[in-house]
């Protein structure tokens, strides 16, 4: 009797609501070849493709204090193998037309992966027209290049290889060079499980390497953790930076020291040689707006600005201290235009000293 009532109850429970989810038997392991999203109860029928059974080790990113979660595309999850492969590709001159110029040729680790030159010459000896960006904490950028022309690191990495003023090769050519290298062949197979090295996977690996370039171990970071002290001058610089006295934080704010936005910071009074974001958006209101670079590691990344016009941090601070040049698209945050910040020489010095606390020596020596 008791047993019957129990059966009855269970039956009641199952049939009580028509809308209760049905149990569908099948293979529920997404890695199996016969996986089906309809199944919700694994019946042990999963079949695995032997080739599909490659092993990668996840590359774990620890989100630094005050940073958002990193933006990692679903179709390019970080692996230890991918990062290592990307590192090799980044340093490999075979990605260029005459095998002479690698990404690292313009993005030098000693300079926080930027270049000490105002402009660089590409493989055809043509001079570029923008200063090579520093590559640092890129996993948190929402667009790339000074004008934001690329939206992902994968998309960005497609461009230098074929750009006539940079590496000026063809992807077809680069692919065939790499496919002839048995070392790469094995690594690409182990990383992405592919039998043919194509541009899509080359840029994926490079992007993984770039996302691993995280720098948050400066004197400033150690100070934040209470491990070291800042000098009086550095502290005063910090205060100028983070109050409306210098008002740097409105654009170079948060622990990332950038805002992922575009501004005209008053470099030119009209007649812009480079329209920046305006070239990409086609909107004249965006003319001469450029992406705010992080000022982390800025001591290593001179010359400064999209066109490398300033060679020292002192010149940069002098620019801001002057208030900048008025033009129709200048940012209203440059609120002292025409007046200037009116910092004393000591205060300018303090500001530079603070900027130098953002230098992470371990990053350039890694």
């Amino acid at each position, binding site marked *: 009797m008791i047993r019957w009532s129990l059966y009855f109850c269970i039956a009641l429970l199952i049939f*009580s609501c028509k809308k209760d989810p049905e149990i569908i038997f099948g293979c529920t392991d997404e890695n199996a070849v016969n996986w089906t999203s309809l199944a919700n109860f694994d019946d042990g029928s999963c079949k695995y493709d032997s080739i599909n059974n490659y092993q990668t080790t996840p590359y774990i990113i620890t989100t630094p204090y005050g940073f958002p979660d990193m933006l990692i595309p679903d179709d390019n999850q970080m692996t230890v193998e991918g990062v290592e492969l990307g590192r090799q590709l980044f340093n490999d001159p075979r990605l260029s037309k005459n095998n002479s110029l690698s990404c690292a040729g313009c993005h030098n680790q000693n300079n926080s992966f930027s270049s000490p030159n105002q402009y660089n010459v590409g493989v055809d000896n043509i001079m570029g027209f923008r200063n090579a960006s520093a590559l640092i904490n890129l996993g948190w950028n929402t667009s790339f290049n000074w004008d934001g022309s690329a939206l992902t690191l994968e998309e960005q990495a497609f461009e230098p290889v074929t750009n006539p003023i940079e590496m000026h090769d063809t992807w077809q050519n680069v692919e065939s060079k790499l496919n002839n290298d048995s070392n790469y062949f094995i690594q690409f197979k182990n990383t992405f499980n592919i039998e043919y090295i194509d541009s899509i996977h080359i840029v994926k690996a490079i992007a993984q390497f770039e996302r691993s370039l995280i720098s948050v171990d400066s004197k400033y970071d150690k100070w934040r953790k209470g491990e070291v002290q800042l000098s009086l001058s550095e502290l005063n610089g910090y205060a100028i930076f983070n109050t409306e006295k210098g008002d740097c934080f409105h654009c170079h704010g948060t622990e990332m020291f950038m805002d992922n936005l575009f501004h005209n910071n008053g470099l030119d009074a009209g007649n812009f040689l480079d329209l920046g974001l305006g070239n990409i958006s086609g909107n004249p209101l965006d003319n001469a707006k450029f992406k705010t670079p992080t000022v982390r590691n800025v001591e290593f990344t001179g010359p400064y600005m999209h066109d490398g016009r300033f060679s020292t941090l002192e010149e940069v601070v002098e620019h801001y201290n002057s208030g900048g040049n008025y033009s129709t698209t200048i940012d209203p945050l440059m609120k002292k*235009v025409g007046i200037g910040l009116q910092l004393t020489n000591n205060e300018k010095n303090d500001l530079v000293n603070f900027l130098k606390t953002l230098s992470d020596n371990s990053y350039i020596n890694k």
Partner: protein
Amino acid sequence: MKIINYSSILIIFLSISSCLIEENETITNASLDFSFSHSQICLPDTSTDNKLLLDKLIYSLSPDGSIIPELYSVKNLNYLISNISLTSSDGSNFPLEDIYFVDALNQTSLTLNLGEIPNNIYTHFNFQFGLDNSINLSNNFVNESFHTTMAWPEMMGGGYHYMKLEGAYQNDSTFYNTHTGPSMGVDYSFMVSKEIALNVDGDLGDISFDLNMIIDNWYKNPNDISFANAIMMDMQKQMQFKMNGMTDVFTIELNK
């Protein structure tokens, strides 16, 4: 024996109640849409509809309350509102959204669908301008879109700006930055509660509210405030903006 009996009773009870819950879902409700608009008074040019004209110097009543109008423009307007809710006639509160970020330059942020609201007679629409100090802490919202745009440095109290209203006044190259927020850690956020008459009874279809910010009114009534910048550490100005904001900056319109 006893145990089995109790458990079967429990199972029967569970199966019945699980159905009841589903039944409730079939009641149809009204769907609530929200829009944010911004206006300038545009004196003496009354030909425009007062809607915010971004980056255009327009005349407005002078902040000092005199009748001589002053030119000003808006180049950028961002703000945070929080604790958005409706109060019903029985005094209960129906929360709609915890925090919402408006960027006047970003069209998609100007509309918000708040989904379905239950049948009731609603008498008030409420929100808090800015964030309450209990949550307004540096790096408390690192994964929200407003984190970098609205961050308020720890040097000046930490947390997030309530509003960034920026533009030119007098001429094209004199800028004002009306940046309000938790100056020196003091909470200057404020509640706004607007009377509405909304009777949701069955399926009413879509209801839409428009929350309008009259930008000029930030600078007058009861306090005349002149355009300026560097007010982030000016606690008196922050208090004056709070008082003006509570008075007549916001209006709400209900369209059924």
